[in-house]
């Protein structure tokens, strides 16, 4: 699919006509362009003629129908009941709501999570620790995988919730969610899954995996930012975080952000319909990237899982002896946008909690490079990176020889 968007256009300030530099964008996990088909459906919801879904007039009723349509589309992506979808302003909010909302209503005061969760889960758990909860952070193996038996050993009689991610955005590892779901279901403990990285990229069915609550992000599905969703089973007891006019079944007050929610619904539909073909295409491009880079940079070490246990659009690795920050900066100067995969680590310069958890302490000090491909990634973009990165590494080695 050919498409002109901000990332492939001329760089601002790059000079007059002809002085354009094409951008290579491989940070889809950081931000994904919104699919133009999504934008087209959203437009009338922004430009007028649509009411508040809570209003009694006919425009309100139409808005209500659009809201419920989006709910059905999001639910269909994960095979859950539409009535279980609670729209939020972000996936972070959805995970906060799942964990705090369940913790507040549960009799037990113990939570199980993993050592490699997203900060929206980790920091919510830390907050509960301050309020007297005990949290067990289950360790992971060298590829970042949680052992379902370790989860079984961590669950106690007073465990209120098990919260684990379906896929790690920093190292690309897929977690054995279905096997863990068997454990939580057998023990009668609610199971929350942060499915932000996995949704639309790997099959996810809440019934098959015995998932009780699930977090989704709109933008990770090529929908607009500013929308997310928590799906939950009707029997889950949940306390709201945001109080007000009783929107979203009383679990998330505040007038619904209808344009973004409608956009998220369309994005979820596209992900369900086109996901498998897109994933096959991205897997091929990702493997081309990995093969090309490892051939030219044999010292580079992959982080996370390989093969089928990895997100298909994700490549991450450490280049020993060269700081990831420096590589990213040099790549950016050459028009290639990638990331370290960890916003937290990028801010503080500290090794990320994920790299520490998979036990690569020395590598962690250098930081990991994270390339995430997406709907508009082309083979020529991959080839640019395969050419550029080894040159950047060689330059950095020359500047700071060991």
């Amino acid at each position: 699919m050919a498409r002109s968007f901000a990332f492939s256009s001329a760089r601002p300030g790059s000079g007059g006509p002809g002085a354009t530099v094409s951008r290579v964008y491989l940070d889809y996990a950081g931000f994904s362009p919104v699919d133009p088909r999504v934008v087209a459906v959203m437009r009338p919801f922004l430009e007028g003629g649509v009411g508040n879904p809570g209003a009694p007039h006919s425009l309100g009723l139409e808005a209500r129908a659009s809201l419920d349509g989006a709910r059905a589309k999001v639910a269909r992506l994960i095979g859950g009941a539409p009535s279980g979808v609670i729209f939020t302003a972000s996936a972070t909010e959805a995970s906060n709501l799942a964990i705090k909302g369940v913790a507040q209503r549960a009799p037990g005061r113990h939570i199980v999570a993993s050592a490699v969760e997203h900060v929206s889960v980790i920091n919510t758990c830390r907050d509960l620790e301050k309020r007297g909860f005990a949290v067990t952070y289950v360790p992971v193996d060298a590829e970042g995988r949680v052992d379902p038996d370790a989860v079984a050993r961590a669950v106690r009689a007073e465990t209120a919730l098990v919260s684990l991610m379906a896929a790690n955005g920093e190292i690309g590892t897929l977690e054995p969610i279905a096997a863990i779901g068997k454990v939580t279901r057998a023990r009668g403990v609610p199971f929350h899954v942060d499915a932000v990285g996995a949704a639309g990229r790997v099959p996810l069915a809440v019934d098959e995996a015995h998932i009780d609550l699930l977090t989704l992000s709109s933008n990770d599905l090529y929908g607009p930012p500013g929308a997310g969703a928590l799906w939950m089973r009707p029997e889950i007891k949940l306390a709201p975080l945001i109080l007000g006019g009783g929107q979203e079944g009383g679990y998330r007050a505040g007038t619904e952000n209808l344009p973004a929610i409608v956009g998220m619904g369309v994005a979820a539909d596209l992900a369900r319909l086109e996901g498998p073909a897109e994933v096959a295409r991205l897997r091929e491009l990702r493997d081309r990237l990995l093969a090309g880079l490892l051939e030219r940079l044999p010292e580079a070490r992959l982080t996370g899982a390989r093969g089928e246990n990895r997100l298909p659009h994700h490549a991450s690795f450490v280049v020993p002896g060269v700081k990831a920050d420096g590589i990213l900066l040099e790549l950016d100067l050459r028009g290639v946008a990638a990331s370290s995969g960890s916003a937290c680590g990028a801010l503080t310069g500290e090794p990320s909690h994920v790299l520490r958890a998979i036990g690569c302490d020395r590598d962690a000090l250098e930081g990991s490079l994270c390339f995430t491909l997406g709907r508009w990634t082309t083979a020529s973009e991959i080839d640019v990176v395969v050419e550029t990165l080894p040159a950047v590494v060689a330059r950095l080695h020359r500047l700071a020889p060991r």
Partner: protein
Amino acid sequence: MPLVADRKLDCVGLFCPMPILKTREAMKHLAVGQILETTSDDPASEADMKSWTARTGHELLEIDKNGTVFRFFVRKTR
């Protein structure tokens, strides 16, 4: 004798990465040899502060824990 800080930083209620980011920022306003007292109630901040001081070379003089609140005394070394 209790440590006397030259500057105090309140990070109570904040979470990773904010206590470390704000500590790093506050250190810029200290002279070498002066002491910063950072207060934080993020359970992760003890490990984070130990790791950050080990990496940057600043001296972690003392960690006080009172209930859920940590007080970190860090001497600027460079």
